[in-house]
């Protein structure tokens, strides 16, 4: 199973095993990773699962769809490597993925 490391805004790292086919958001929620709210449960409706993707993985996490892009446009502290983690599907290629959570999702 691919491993994902979540880093909170203070630099604390948590590495968990992820299931292929589930999202980076779901993996976080099921492992109680702090810093990801994901209120809508993955419907791309709430923009509360914002993460910063390690730049080494940017070309492996897939393209942003239009909905995600326009949702992220309203998130706080958006960067080049910002993504909504509900829109990143875990695959073997993402083994070792590192994402950082923002200080706030609101």
């Amino acid at each position: 199973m691919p491993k994902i490391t979540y880093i909170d805004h203070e630099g604390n790292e948590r590495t968990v095993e992820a299931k292929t086919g589930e999202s980076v958001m779901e993996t976080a929620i099921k492992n109680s990773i702090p810093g990801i709210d994901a209120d809508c449960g993955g419907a791309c409706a709430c923009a509360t699962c914002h993460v910063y993707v390690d730049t080494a993985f940017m070309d492996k996490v897939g393209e942003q769809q239009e909905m995600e892009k326009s949702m992220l446009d309203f998130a706080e502290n958006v960067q080049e490597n910002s993504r909504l983690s509900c829109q990143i599907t875990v695959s073997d290629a993402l083994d070792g993925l590192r994402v950082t959570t923002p200080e706030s999702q609101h």
Partner: protein
Amino acid sequence: MDLSSASRIVLIGGGQAAAQAIQSLRMGGFEGSITLVGDEPALPYQRPPLSKAYMKGEFAEERLYFKPAAWYEDNKVDLILSTRATSLDRAARKVHLEHGAVLDYDALILCTGSRPRPLPVKGADLQGVHDLRTLADVERIRPQMVAGRRLVIIGAGYIGLEAAAVARTMGLEVTVLEMADRVLARVTSPVMSEFYEKEHRAQGATILTGTRFDHFEGKDGHVSAAVLADGTKLPADLVLVGIGILPNIELAKEAGLTIDNGIATDRDARTSDPRIFAAGDCASRPLVHYGRSGRLESVHNAIEQAKLAAAAILGKPRPAEDCPWFWSDQFDLKLQIAGLNQGYDELVVRGDPDARKFAVFYLRNGTLIAVDAVNSPPEFLASKKLIMSGAKLAPGVLKDTSTPMKDIAAAAATA
């Protein structure tokens, strides 16, 4: 009441609010016992996908669970599932369960949710007539969702229309019966109703508004037709009833808690008993951005009230109350709703409904109170901020699609 010395917390109900409250209590450092009593057999799960992706069979049941079974063990949460709470003894701080068990509590959170409003007509008990509320309902419905079968949906609310969209995508013949003169009449404006009616018709569904349904006919115990008041028979292999929900308030009411449509709570989700909280569909709460109380049926409301209750129990500052929001997925249309539109005196359409990307703003005295945004996240997200700020807005500004929503929100913030 200071509950910071509470060591035993009991939750009744196992839906969104209960799952959030448990999470917030443990993340907030609560180390005492947590017991959840739920009347369904499954681990606490998300309901919204039941009428959307999950209904289509796009993923496994375990993906609906908020947390895997191991999480409850690791976090020392006792789950008592498939079990109903039968009464509260507030003086003795006990919850009585069916089969005779009794739980003691220092703080109690009622997350009893709601149940489908029953349809009191002849034939409602026939096989093939279903509600759509629980995992068990979907397990019964899904094997019958076969291309070519005739599905009749009673009620054109969000649940009915979402199910209609799924069924059309799967190739069923779909007829939706609605008593009101338009779909979504209880929740949105005629502009939105017209848009969704047109969309469903374009996708091949039959939408009959202003229609009085009378009863079901059966054959060998299974539904065979829906019969209208004028005698018209609509052949049916499968029926879904979605005519709204009723809050589960009985336990609270019998225990003498104040009821106001739902279980009445204050801003901390506390009921008229200082040791008892209520969250989610069952609770009526102050709607702080609207200066009144009300009962909301939404994920956001369940999450927020659960967080408020957990914070109050733990003696932490009250979390900020967001503007109410909702969503609905039908076909490839994502509808995002912010605010509550009741009492609007002005309506502004931004964008073109025919382009399937537009928003309807609702204003009252020049202030934005709600938006319905179809495939338009900027309109939704900017409106959340605008609604909470209470800023005055000129309708012409909202209508002008050449000005981005971000700029409109920024201008209103500095005005």
